[in-house]
């Protein structure tokens, strides 16, 4: 069926390339919009990075195991600390080399990593 809505651009990106791809987008003039986590199944997450340039939206999709460690993009986009700390606290994903790591105290949740699948 033909979509009646605005174009959706989702670009898969590998774990080893996420930092360089985001750096490329920054160099091209993209603005960070948001980062969010999605539980795919008991063993895998998807992290969606959204960027804007001239009101056009580009989403990077990073599929990772639930215990994977991801390179922080705060050295490229400092405001990413908001999302990386949120995903760390809710999903348990570790972001390496963060410019502002709250060490699990960003959200005060009664249950640690509430989105992480219970096996």
């Amino acid at each position, binding site marked *: 069926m033909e*979509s009646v809505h605005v174009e959706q651009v989702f670009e898969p990106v590998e774990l080893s390339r996420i930092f360089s791809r985001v750096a490329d987008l920054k160099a091209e003039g993209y603005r960070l*919009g948001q980062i969010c986590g*999605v539980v795919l199944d008991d063993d895998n997450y998807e992290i969606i990075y959204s960027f*804007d340039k001239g009101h056009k939206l580009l989403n990077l999709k990073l599929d990772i195991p639930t215990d994977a460690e991801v390179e922080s993009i705060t050295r490229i986009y400092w*405001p990413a600390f908001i999302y990386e700390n949120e995903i760390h606290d809710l999903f348990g994903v570790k972001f390496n080399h963060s410019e502002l790591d*709250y060490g699990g105290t960003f959200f005060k949740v009664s249950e640690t990593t509430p989105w992480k699948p219970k096996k």
Partner: protein
Amino acid sequence: MGKKTIIPFGPQHPVLPEPIHLDLVVEDETVVEAIPSIGYIHRGLEKLVEKKDYNQMVYVVERICGICSFGHGWGACLAIEGAMNVEIPERAEYLRTILHELGRIHSHLLWLGLMADGFGFESLFNHCWRVRETVLDLFEKNTGGRVVFSICKVGGMRQDISDENLKEMVEVLNGIKKEIKSLTDVFINDTSVKNRMVGVGVLTKEEAEELCAVGPTVRGSGVAQDLRLTDTHGVYGKLGFEPIVEEAGDCMARTKVRIREVFQSIELIEKAVSMIPEGPVAVNVKGNVEDGAEYMVRLEQPRGEAFYYARGAGSKFLKRMRVRTPTNMNIPALVKTLQGCDLADVPILVLTIDPCISCTER
């Protein structure tokens, strides 16, 4: 250079209706660093996708915030409609646009009142909120609610608003225009107000872009970023929309953007009411969101760009409903503007990003 001292600001503070904490590193009276902490009221609303079906999630998302609740409900509907490839009737698009702009007037008047309260101008605060009551009355008359409206649903609108009521809405708004003008003139021209805001908390255009700021915060720094320019939602393209931009980047510029947007929203409502077509306000939506079907959409809330993402699971429940609210993206800009400011200006600077912590934490 004085000795460095850390002063805690919040999470409970007279200018903060909701909790955010800042560790302010000060030398004498100057803030040299600010470290934000949130997370005091995380409610886990997104996690409710496991227990609420996609129609019920619209109610949940709408309750993220009591100020921009219509926009949140609209955003959730847009994401789900996108994932289901549902096209809504044109009249519903107009009605959504009209109510969203009414919400912007309500939000900005509320903020102007809070701002006046923040710098100790109590009578101005009371007058702003008194005028805002008129807008809430319009909401109540046309939707049945003053805070949460539940009029937006997947597929369109739950009920129509009659042409007579729409015309009355325009008359009422035009009736309070003069009063809003006299109030906002105080913000712009009063010496004591100018002393607190002009040249304070300057966020340059480059800094605003680097820090990915949104809404009146970025438009007050000379960036014409407004999602109403896009075709993602509503009928703004048909209304001849141009974003409001101020160049100075200080507290006054952010205030002027919101003031001008109040009048712009009244004009947009008037235009939309004059152009709204006859017809149904909803289509019947059946079935579930397909497994893996997804849609990411943005909407210009009163505080700025908001994201809504829906992903289907092949059942009546969604796999994910994500909401990223404007304050998320303005906290880094706040931290930047706090660096180098006087300690006494911190409350004003915090207010000028119009923080909504309920939105931010969800």
